[in-house]
């Protein structure tokens, strides 16, 4: 498949805010990143980081009752070679893209599958809608998709209902539905968090295979750094609604620039010990917890919990600046340390 040089998705200064009883909550603020064709970008963050809201904003799936205020640009390269801003499309144009070129899979497959329709019907639905196939052809395609996601006995399974399948298989069905129209961008929102470790490994391997086969890009949203280390090409780290660091995966793990990323990696029990050294008595800890979105700190959002914070950190929100080849960090200390990193 021809791989163009243009990124599949370019997000610039994306912001999503929700009016609440307690005030305006900036769930996502000034988020910028891009995803190359055929690559996987991981969006990493904990609760309150805004990673899920980011994906829902891009897919334009936020509830109308939420009265979200969205600003920014999300440039998506369509299959036909055009470039459209996802945030500016009208609903009809968006619906033509969703499930077609732009697909999404979620964390809880049981609640995302319709319990009264067979899995075949649910896969066939998107094909019939976007490709105009008739029932027979759509069902045949659905069976092929079940094969693609490595569900054994696809001919029989295509007529089964979600409750007859295990958790891992339901997630495969979700992937089949997402892949049915051969998307160029797949947004996966914590797709393996609810699955057992051995099943998670299967699903991740499946996604890797599908990506190699179809050349699609993946936006992988997760909080699991182990998964990121082995399944992402680029990493975007979010904290309190903002991007605090972005880098290629090896560079990020080798030398994280932002204190939050450093802390996150340091506090993993798996990182606690290098072979040959005794087990440390205490794990590294990021003190405190994320501030309430209704009462954000005056300057850098991470400053109250940061061991490297100085007075200037409390003054203003740092800009997201380049810290090397393909790397950015939102931290005045990280940027200031650059000459040493070189």
């Amino acid at each position, binding site marked *: 498949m021809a791989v163009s040089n243009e990124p599949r998705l370019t997000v610039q200064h994306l912001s999503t805010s929700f009016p609440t009883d307690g005030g305006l909550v900036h769930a996502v603020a000034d988020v910028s990143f891009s995803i190359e064709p055929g690559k996987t970008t991981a969006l990493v963050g*904990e*609760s309150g980081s805004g990673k899920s809201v980011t994906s829902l904003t891009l897919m334009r799936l936020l509830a109308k009752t939420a009265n979200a205020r969205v600003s920014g640009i999300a440039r998506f390269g369509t299959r036909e070679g055009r470039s459209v801003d996802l945030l500016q499309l009208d609903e009809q144009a968006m619906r033509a893209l969703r499930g077609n070129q732009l697909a999404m899979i979620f964390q809880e497959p049981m609640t995302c599958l319709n319990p009264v329709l067979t899995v075949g019907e649910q896969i066939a639905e998107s094909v019939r809608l976007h490709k105009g196939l008739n029932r027979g052809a759509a069902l045949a395609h659905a069976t092929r998709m079940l094969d693609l996601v490595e569900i054994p006995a696809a001919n029989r399974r295509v007529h089964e209902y979600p409750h007859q399948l*295990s*958790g*891992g*298989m339901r997630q495969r069905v979700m992937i089949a539905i997402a892949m049915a129209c051969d998307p160029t961008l797949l947004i996966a929102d914590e797709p393996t968090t609810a699955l*057992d*470790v*051995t*099943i*998670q*490994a*299967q699903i*991740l*391997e499946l996604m890797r295979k599908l990506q190699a086969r179809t050349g699609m890009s993946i936006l992988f949203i997760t*909080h*699991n*750094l*182990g*998964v*990121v*280390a*082995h*399944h992402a090409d680029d990493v975007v780290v979010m904290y309190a609604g903002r991007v605090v660091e972005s880098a290629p*995966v*090896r560079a990020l*793990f080798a030398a994280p620039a932002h204190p939050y990323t450093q*802390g*996150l*990696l340091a*506090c*993993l*029990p*798996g*990182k*606690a*010990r290098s072979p040959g050294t005794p*087990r440390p*008595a*205490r*794990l*590294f*800890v*990021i*003190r405190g*917890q994320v501030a309430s979105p209704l009462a954000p700190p005056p300057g850098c959002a991470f400053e109250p919990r940061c061991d490297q914070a100085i007075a200037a950190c409390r003054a203003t929100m740092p800009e997201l600046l380049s810290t090397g080849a393909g790397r950015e960090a939102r931290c005045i200390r990280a940027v200031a340390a650059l000459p040493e990193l070189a």
Partner: protein
Amino acid sequence: MNEPLIEVRGLKKFFGSNDRPVRAVDDVSFAIARGETLGLVGESGSGKSTIGRTVLRLVEPTAGQVFYRGGDIGALASEPLRKLRSKLQIIFQDPYASLNPKMRIGAILCEALATHHLHPGKGAREKRVAELLELVGLRAEHASRFPHEFSGGQRQRIGVARALAVEPEFIVADEPLSALDVSIQSQVINLLAELRERLSLTMLFISHDLDVVEYLCDRVVVLYLGKVMEVATTGALFEKALHPYTRALLAASPKADPNQPSVHVALKGDIPSPIAPPSGCVFRTRCPHAIDACAEHVPTLEEVEPGRWAACIRKEIVLMKAAA
């Protein structure tokens, strides 16, 4: 004292109908020495949570016995059992559901103290509540607040304080970190490690997160579909796993280091249902080394190396140097 603090023998717990029950725990035995932290590791259907509750008799076992300091707790009547509960405590997985939303924190902790007649007198109890809150890293003034005013990590600390209020010797920690963010997990892990040391606690740590188990536990029991697959000290297990399931489990857990090779030993197939477990070795349907004989008998847990136990008939596979 050489006698283990907790000993479990032939524990079984079946749920549901008598002819096709859910075999949640199927003949599990292990012992925990005083001051030891034993890790219970497994995926869905392994029975680890059920074992945690059955050890405390929060759930009555279908068969088997649980001994505390040599005494069979299954033989106790309800009132002596109730009194014994101060010695055997539990920390739950869900910090949001484990606290009564209508009670203030101080009342929750006072109730624990009052149940076992500790620190009688209003003033003494309030003082003790303040001490407990500070012990878990919170502040005394938090006692007047309600659970919904706290974050998940803080609620989990309150749960720990409640368990410690009754001065237990043994604590079952049932996936206490699963509902918490990564950066909060390390705080709670440190808290547990510190309290364990300070109060000389014995722990049964149930988790599916192998990294945490490696960090916190002295020995590990690996479970699959209600049966024990392997038992070993932590260091030995993580350096060289013997049982094929343990190997697959370790390989499937991605390490947060892109330079370490990711092993594509993805186990095929799904975890079978505990209602209809495979005959013979329950792992044989997904085991890369299964042979016909594996279906015939349930393999016994044997000491294949000093201090290392595995339930597998294929000794040559088990004792082979760890596959990369």
